[in-house]
């Protein structure tokens, strides 16, 4: 990226936006603009063609029916697969994270996913609802993950991906690991506006998308207070 805008696509907000998922797009755009990076945000509805030329793609959480529909349409469209082949960044949350794998469960049936990440999801014994905290893969160089989860699925990682974090509070993938990443794709069960509590993760996605080795720091004192408050709230 040089003089061109940073293009962020939010995939199917009509289907996958249940828990403030818009937040991730707003946060990324605000943090890029604060560094003087011009941004274009594009919301692509499920009845529209998905452009494959954007820098960063966001997929949010959703109910079972819309999740299955989104998988079907994304596979038929092929735009996201082409974008990933070009090296675009993908950040996926909750149902969107499950979609990236080879298969997932919705409405009691198994559906094929997008097969962009080596993982598959099934149903867990109970719904995972509550704070989700973890120590992030040291190779990503990030402070601990802080979030909230609400999902019925469990996700099993294959050898082709690495866990995003090791769980310290909550369930994540299976009570031990949480989320997954590979290359420029990253998924998490920390749902909704996951980046609101994880500004460093937001900046990692921006660095991946822009190729910038360094982004000047922003005033994250409110996010920092929020992180500390949630950390204290989950301490035994």
């Amino acid at each position, binding site marked *: 990226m040089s003089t061109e805008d940073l293009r962020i696509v939010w995939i199917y907000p*009509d*289907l996958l*936006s*249940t*828990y*403030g*998922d*818009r*937040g991730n797009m*707003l*946060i990324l755009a*605000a943090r890029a603009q604060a560094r003087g990076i011009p941004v274009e945000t594009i919301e692509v*509805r*499920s*009845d529209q063609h998905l452009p494959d030329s954007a820098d960063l793609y966001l997929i949010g959480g959703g*109910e079972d*029916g*819309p999740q299955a*529909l989104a998988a079907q349409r994304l596979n038929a469209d092929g735009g996201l697969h082409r974008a990933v082949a070009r090296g675009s960044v993908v950040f996926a949350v909750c149902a969107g994270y499950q979609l990236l794998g080879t298969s997932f469960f919705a409405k009691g049936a198994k559906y094929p996913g997008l097969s962009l990440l080596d993982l598959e999801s099934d149903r867990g014994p109970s719904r995972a*609802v*509550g704070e989700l905290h973890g120590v992030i893969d040291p190779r990503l160089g990030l402070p601990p993950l802080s979030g*909230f989860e*609400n999902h019925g699925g469990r996700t099993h990682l294959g050898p082709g991906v690495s866990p995003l974090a090791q769980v310290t509070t909550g369930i994540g993938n299976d009570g031990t690991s949480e989320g997954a990443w590979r290359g420029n794709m990253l998924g998490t069960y920390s*749902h*909704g*506006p996951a980046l*609101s*509590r994880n500004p460093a993760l937001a900046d990692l996605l921006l660095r991946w998308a822009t190729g910038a080795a360094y982004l000047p720091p922003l005033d994250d004192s*409110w*996010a920092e*207070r*929020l992180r500390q*408050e949630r950390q204290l709230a989950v301490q035994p």
Partner: protein
Amino acid sequence: MPLRAKVASSVSRTAAALSRAAGRGDGSVIGGWIGLKIDPELLAHLAQGRSVALISGTNGKTTTTKLTVAALEGLGRVATNAFGANMPTGHTSALAKAGATPYAVLEVDEHYLARVLDETRPRAVALLNLSRDQLDRAKEVAMMAQMWRDALAHHPGVHVVANADDPMVTWAAQRSSNVTWFSAGQRWHDDSWVCPECGGAIQRAGGDWRCTTCPLRRPRPHWVVEEDGVFDPSGAWHQVKLQLPGTVNIGNAATALAVAAQFGVRPADAVLRLASVTSVAGRYAQVERDGRLIRLLLAKNPASWLEAFDMAEAAPTLLSINARDPDGLDTSWLFDVDFSPLYGRRVLITGDRAYDLAVRLQVNGIPFEHVTTFTDAVDAVPPGRLEVIANYTAFQDIRAELDRVN
């Protein structure tokens, strides 16, 4: 009433009175709980012989219930659960406490609609809207619409008063043989982009909506809100003068008029009675403290925040957010709300989860000040109006604080 029900009803009233006397709340839950333990069919027994209206939906049910009571009171005494205790224990307690009344208007939590329909055999049921609300524990919106649709299928005789502007409500009510449709406009659309019938995309244009792949579409409404009044089914327009703020309450008033019409109340008569409603369980109430005219608005979920911004005047505004059990533990919804209507106002924030709100407002580009207590907020603003918008337990905290001093 069978003897068992009489005993249960009497014990229920006594328990409620004891609970009140002991300062343990208004007794509207405990009384009903004990009564139902003695006679599980107590609610059905208490409802017998009354003409009942039920009011349900995600937002506006307490206000619409109160407006409907006001509209029906010209006919005779009306029993109601005015304290917002909207589950069967609350209904049981309300009816036991009211004694014999010809009418009852009950606010019903949307999860309990099927059961309360079965037990109270209402003459009319009003379905206001369905949107995301406390999703960490509540049923997803589409599932709730399905539950309503199934429940109504068991009650072909009930008259349904339903919101034609809400695709989820329309689909839930659509198969009933007896529906009065109302149109009150809707600010919040983000839970109804997908057709509940076929999964196709819902298309909106102006106030109209339709599914792009199946026949589901907005029905022609019989009652239509326009400006500060409502058209009735005969085409006559009635100005609605309320002491409650906001266009959303004109819509709630229209719903109350449509329900009252099912009981034979003419809208021209009913509409005058609506102006008697001043505050609803402390909401919209204005309190003066140290020269500050404080108004409390409750906003529980994204749809009701949009309505609250519409009601609030351009004055200093305090936002208070908690995430305790009754609120839902998840604050993600803050990012579903666009706070930009507050831009240019002085904004103060407080509450258990003020930091979540701080991060949200920062992204929204809205300057704010954080205060640790409600009293600090009052001290921080000059004499004059202070608008307070809070979610459920934050609202209760501020109410208690104001009651304590005033």
